[in-house]
């Protein structure tokens, strides 16, 4: 049914440009919303809008570029990406630039480069490549190996420390294993091991500021002027938006700068304050549409590697949304995850759209595959 619909118009201009139109429209709508909210959150700073606009154009260029590359080419390159990425992560730990209390950047002389961003795509590619080499559902040995491929970069990033990104890396790898059909028994075992691992992480791996974030999350009112300030102000912003919202540029929490990180991690609070519950429902609908569209593309992919990679990219995208919204509304501890395509910022935007480029490539290149 679905196939027949697509094949009814196989030579449309979008198909030839390897662009999935519904997905593109969804993304553009989100980006537009992002610009509108950034304008408000950034204190009507046109410079901010221009810089973000340039980033969006660049990122869209990257997306379209990557959409032209056939999935099989990615599959061949998966292992290379992955190995180079891991090596760079090790390099970051050894010689990386320190910023905001974490060691995340490689100074390439002409630009600062964040290798963990590459891993956001390299990890699902690698795990998908490995798992798809065997028949599905994967056997225990392959699952353990796949888990290991995910765990190495995740731990390296967690060590920087960058809790948000390592969470996304872990999600990307685990989603591949889940979509590949890992049995529920094994999922249960991993979950159990994970909860057992939590106290070890708390004791040995987490830095003081991360522990503080978790403690603050558990009881933000305990330190209203210190660590809990951000989350309290964010909840006030969201709550005081009510159903209709205070109106664009009218959010007092954001306009009067009570909100922290207004145009980056906490931009959802600004959105919620100004557009209210109504706006939130519409925004979530848009995100849900993109996720559903992504999963449709994944299901339609004919080849396991493409299915797994497309599925993982789409689900990880949702994890961004969930973690960001959850953290600013007090459901989750504050880890530095931006609201995808809306938060101001360069690196993650490019990575996200690169992911959608791969997704579009998978969604529009069936003919190459079906040649077989």
């Amino acid at each position: 049914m679905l196939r027949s619909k697509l094949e009814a118009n196989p030579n449309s201009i979008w198909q030839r440009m390897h662009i999935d139109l519904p997905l593109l429209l969804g993304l553009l709508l989100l980006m537009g919303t992002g610009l509108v909210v950034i304008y408000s959150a950034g204190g009507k700073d046109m410079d901010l809008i221009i810089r973000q606009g340039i980033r969006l154009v660049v990122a869209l260029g990257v997306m379209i570029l990557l959409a032209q590359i056939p999935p099989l080419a990615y599959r061949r390159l998966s292992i290379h990406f992955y190995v180079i990425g891991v090596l760079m992560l090790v390099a970051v730990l050894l010689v990386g630039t320190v910023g905001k209390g974490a060691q995340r950047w490689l100074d390439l002389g002409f630009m600062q480069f964040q290798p963990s961003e590459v891993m956001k795509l390299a990890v699902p590619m690698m795990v998908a490549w490995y798992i798809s080499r065997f028949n599905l559902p994967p056997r225990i040995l392959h699952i353990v190996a796949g888990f290991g491929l995910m765990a190495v970069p995740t731990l390296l990033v967690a060590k920087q420390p960058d809790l948000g990104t390592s969470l996304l890396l872990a999600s990307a790898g685990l989603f591949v294993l889940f979509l590949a059909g890992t049995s529920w028994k094994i999922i249960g075992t991993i979950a159990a091991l994970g909860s057992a691992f939590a106290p070890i992480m708390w004791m040995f791996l987490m830095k003081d500021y991360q522990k503080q974030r978790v403690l603050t999350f558990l009881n933000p009112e305990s330190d209203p002027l210190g660590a809990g300030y951000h989350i309290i102000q964010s909840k006030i912003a969201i709550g005081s938006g009510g159903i209709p919202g205070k109106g664009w540029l009218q959010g007092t929490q954001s306009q009067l700068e009570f909100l922290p990180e207004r145009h980056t991690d906490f931009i959802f609070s600004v959105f919620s304050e100004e557009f209210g519950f109504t706006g939130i429902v519409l925004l979530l609908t848009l995100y849900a549409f993109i996720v559903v569209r992504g999963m449709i593309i994944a299901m339609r992919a004919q080849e396991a590697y493409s299915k797994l990679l497309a599925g993982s990219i789409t689900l990880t995208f949702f994890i961004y949304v969930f973690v960001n919204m959850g953290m600013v509304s007090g459901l989750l501890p504050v880890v530095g995850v931006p609201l995808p395509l809306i938060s101001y910022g360069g690196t993650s935007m490019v990575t996200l759209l690169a992911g959608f480029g791969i997704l579009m490539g998978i969604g529009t290149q069936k003919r190459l595959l079906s040649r077989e």
Partner: protein
Amino acid sequence: MPPKRITIRDHTSEANLFARRTVIALLGIAALIVTLVSNLYYLQVTKYTDYQTRSNGNRIKVLPVAPNRGLIYDRNGLLLAENRPTFSLEVIPEQVANLDASLESLQQLLSLSDDDISDFRDELKSQRRFRPVNLKARLSHEEVALFSAHQHKYPGISVEARLTRHYPYGDTLTHLLGYVSRINKKDLQKLNEAGQADNYAATYNIGKLGVEKFHESKLHGQVGYQEVEVNNQGRIIRTLKFQPPVPGDDLVLNVDVRLQQVIQQSLQGYRGSVVAIDPRNGGVLALYSNPSYNPNLFVHGISSKEYQKLLQSRDRPLINRATQGQYPPASTVKPHLALLGLELGVITEETRMFDRGTYKLKNVERPWRDWKKWGHGWVDVRKSIEVSCDVFFYDLAYKTGIDNISDMMSQFGFGDYTGIDLYEESAANMPSRGWKRARYNEPWYIGDTISVGIGQSYWTTTPLQLAKSVTTLVNRGVRFVPQILRGHYIDNKLHQAAPKELQPITLNSPRNWQVVLDAMYGTVNNPEHGTARHAFKDTSYTSAGKTGTAQVISIAMDEEYDEETIADHHKDNAMYIGYAPYDAPEIVVTVAMENAGGGSSQAAPIARKVMDYYFANKENGNYAAQ
């Protein structure tokens, strides 16, 4: 491509497996979205009112706005206390990250003295939280400009322009007018108890002394409010609502500041005080205590060095001698005692006795001496007052008895607060049997009574108390509470305060008033023996009065015995009471000078200067009673 592996794969079952997992994943996503949405619904819908309130609490601050303090004028409309705009450097300690470093760098920038810094640190300790502490008052325009250029380096420190109290007449009015100074913890506690803390939320200074303290509630006014929107730095973005403060009342005093200046000049070099009252209503025309000090020092926070200097000065400038100095009234109370003797029939107008210079009681070895060694010869009650004969009054007191004296003199106001609108007042002491028993656990001796007859012994009074008693005397029993406040302006119209009248003293024989007042007339006008005749020679007005010369060690203020000053402190206190015009009194004057010598030679001339000035300027219409 590894086609071999792909060919043996079961694509259909893998696709089905993937589809099943996708559905599960989408279901999981749906569950997470529901979680998010229900939490957001809880925040935005269920708890909307709470968060809206907190959001408003964040952005809306209600700032109190201090009312302008009422001005104070003298009876002729001269401004005695004004509000001047000044710039001061103020620090909110809680907002300064590194106080020590900021102070150090400011010290270089604005050349603050070490004293400025140490005074600031002292004040810091006694300051209310989150209130600005003064670092340097009265900045020059250059200093304001200099600091403004560097302001960004000093968060929590700012130049504030505010109205500051200023007393243009300086030390001429200090004891009377008092001053305002920074509200301290004790003041705050009192304001809290009085339920006035909110009204003072924006006020920096409060009346600490004199009229400024007594009439604080009239002068202060009512606090206003400004509802403002602030950002996270607390900076005001805009004003939402403004309820203006109600300024304090502008007060008018009965005092004539130029008369006060005349008194100040004539008392230079002496420790003493002068009180002038309008007997027709009790209005205080002048009340001056010398030495005085500059009240403006206290407004901006006096340095501890300067304060110590005032505190330790042997001349005790901080004391208001007119209301707190306790002196034996000496002969100035002879008219009062004579009135009592006449009223009780102990003496009559015709009673005569021969004064040989001493007074003896049966069975008492030691005689009481008159100030005139060889006595005044034959004296009656009039002459006894005119020449200030002691022996006549020894006898009068002996015959009247302490109980009668104590009773009547209390009616004149001795030994009690006058009720003047000042808090700095002492009741002094009118001795009685009961008082001596309570104070010393001793019986009253007859000798004590005899000394009381010439205003000595345990009897002390304040110059103001004395003035009040003279007012009663010249009013023939009509009594007024001395009042500094004349009224207040409302819309440029003077609303006069009603005189405070007390229950009058009534005599069985009202003629007795005349006898005593006649004698006071003689004191000034008898060309042969009036003790004040020299001082009041050739006045353009007719006055009456009574001199007094008190033998004292010092004023009764618990002074320590000091060998260096003993000679000086042995000198007599010079006292004078007087009024004029004789037939229709408009002004009552009392003078008390410590260790200055005789009342007729020292105190009376000063009283004359006061009256001279009064009558010379009366024509200008300055002294209309109402």
